[in-house]
């Protein structure tokens, strides 16, 4: 019912293109995350969907209806802003009630003093009060309704902003980095709450972030944007395992994927990593390699750091391939139960050739022939 379809949406600020023809279908009820580095145009795209900015060309369809030229309030969307954008002079209740009041009360009824006297306002206000309280209870902010936003913690403000968006049951929720102002712990908690909210409401969520961990943990699908273009759209595990572009491979996953320039390797090493002709970069995830004796490793080097996360240990290795100028930093995951490693140990690194991702000089993914055949 209320999916979103973008077709060739483009936007420039002066001579600088910000969006270069974005086409994307967001399914009804889907949780889609727009992710990408700072300045790639995520907010711009979200604002175009909301109707706060107009695109230069292309079309936006929400719920089967072309909404180009419709004002934000007529698009049945709600938006949560990065800095919350709560009205500082209004109580939490009034903040949450505003969208309902703007819709249900007539212009005269909304007037400050005169409005209160106007007949017919009482029952509408009663209804609004009821709905605001219901939403507030859902978000666990019922006890804060009489406070001003300035008297709330960051997490509470976040909930109020969510409440203001939820209260009128929009078909689409747009969220622009809503968690970026929270501390790390609260962020993880709010991630869970927002996904739970999504399941409960069943509305379409478009969530903007530049934090790949948020994208990976919350979404049904992730759309990766770079420099005004969508480079890949897919489920989180798909993007992780099967990135179609070097930038996606590097952006998704923490710690970052290991990238080895093919030029730095001698013939034997390239063969050992199953390099295909034309590959200019070979990449493998930290868990796609084993640590072994220096002589047995395809790559070798000394350990520069040991990152113990409890369940996993990440070894930072400064590898020295044959034709490399300096050291090549690699990160390899090892199980905590195995051998103990110390900084300075010289080790070998053995990437699993089947899990090495290969990219051409333009950063496009090359598939290994045998795997394509398999």
């Amino acid at each position, binding site marked *: 019912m209320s999916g979103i379809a973008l077709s060739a949406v483009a936007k420039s600020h002066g001579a600088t293109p910000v969006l270069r023809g974005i086409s994307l279908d967001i399914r009804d009820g889907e949780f889609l995350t727009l992710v990408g580095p700072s300045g790639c145009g995520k907010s711009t795209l979200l*604002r175009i969907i*909301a*109707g*706060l900015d107009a695109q230069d060309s292309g079309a936006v369809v929400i719920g089967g209806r072309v909404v180009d030229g419709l*004002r*934000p*309030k007529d698009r049945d*969307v*709600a*938006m949560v*802003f*990065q*800095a919350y*954008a*709560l*009205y*500082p*002079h*209004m109580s939490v209740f009034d903040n949450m009630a*505003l*969208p309902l009041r*703007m*819709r249900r009360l007539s212009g005269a009824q*909304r007037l*400050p003093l005169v409005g209160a006297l106007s007949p017919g306002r009482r029952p509408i206000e009663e209804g609004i009060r009821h709905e605001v309280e219901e939403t507030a209870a859902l978000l666990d902010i019922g006890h804060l309704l009489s406070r001003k936003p*300035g008297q709330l913690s960051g997490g509470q403000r976040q909930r109020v902003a969510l409440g*203001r968006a939820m209260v009128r049951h929009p078909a689409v929720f747009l969220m622009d980095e809503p968690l970026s102002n929270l501390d790390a712990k609260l962020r993880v908690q709010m991630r869970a709450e927002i996904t739970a909210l999504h399941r409960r409401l069943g509305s379409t969520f478009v969530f903007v972030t530049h934090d790949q961990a948020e994208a990976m943990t919350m979404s049904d699908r992730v759309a990766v944007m770079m420099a005004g273009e969508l480079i890949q759209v897919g489920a989180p595990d798909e993007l992780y395992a099967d990135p179609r572009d070097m930038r996606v491979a590097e952006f998704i996953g923490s710690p970052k994927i290991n990238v080895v320039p093919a030029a730095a390797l001698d013939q034997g090493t390239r063969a050992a990593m199953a390099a295909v002709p034309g590959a200019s970069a070979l990449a493998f995830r930290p868990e796609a390699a084993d640590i072994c004796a220096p002589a047995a490793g395809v790559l070798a080097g000394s350990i520069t750091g040991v990152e113990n996360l409890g369940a996993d240990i990440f070894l930072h290795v400064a590898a020295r391939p044959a034709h490399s100028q300096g050291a090549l930093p690699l990160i390899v995951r090892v199980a905590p139960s195995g051998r103990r490693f110390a900084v300075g140990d010289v080790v070998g690194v053995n990437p699993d050739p089947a899990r090495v991702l290969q990219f051409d000089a333009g950063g496009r993914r090359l598939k290994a022939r045998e795997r394509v055949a398999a």
Partner: protein
Amino acid sequence: MTAVAPGRQHRLSHASLVAGLAVAPAVVLLALLLFGPALAVAVFSLTDWQIGASSFRFLGLANYQALFADRIFWTSLVNTVIYVVIVVPGTVGLGLVVALLIEAQPSLRGFYRAAHFLPVMSTMAAMAIVWGTMLHPTIGLVNRMLAEFGIPATNWLRDPRTVLPALAVIGIWQGFGFAMVLFVAGLKSVPQSLYDAAAIDGADRALDRLRVVTLPMLGPVTMFVLILTATRAFEVFDTVRVLTQGGPNFASDVLLYRLYTESFDFLRTGYGAALTVVYLVIVVLLTLTQARVLDRRVHYT
């Protein structure tokens, strides 16, 4: 006693000496320019001294009794209040409206800002003369324009019913540019995201935006402008002195003009001093309110 102590002491007294020297000019100036004269005025207000006289007698509160019994004093006080009551909302309202119009019209913004700020920069006494010719009953621009619409001529500055409003209009003309500049600065600091939120919430028409976002966010600036304008309106003098001399029949007499005539035309220095003290009390009260309100003004963050 160690060898260090004297050195330390020396440094300490040196520091306090420097501090003392640093504040000394301010203290001396404050005493010389503010407290001294105020005290002198307060003392004079209890005497029958006249400018140039070599001796005086203490009268106690006789000057104040005379002042409060003086019908003209009350007239001038009421006139001042009426003037303030017209000028303050007029200046603040016009300043706000012009600021909103300027901000809504991005091109030529700088020009409009400068043009409206010109009256603030000009000398009021000189501008008063210009206004005097504009308001002239026969050759004045105002009456001629009104005549175009068939409205009979008014002798604006000689008619007791119109003289105060006419002066108030001049006051508004002079002051609204300043209010406008402060409002423009205030408008710049309203976050765009609030307007975005308002658009999403359905408050996207000009009046709704004004009610939901702009006016509340301008609250602190408005308070500041209000008090500033009130204080300035209270000091009205130049226009009265140049254009009406308090006439006709005291209809445009204001506190400062009264003070001036009593002290320098009639040389009743003691009486003028009592008037000054009353004026100072009112101004200090206004200033204190300003300080308190500004301290308590809502900090929206």
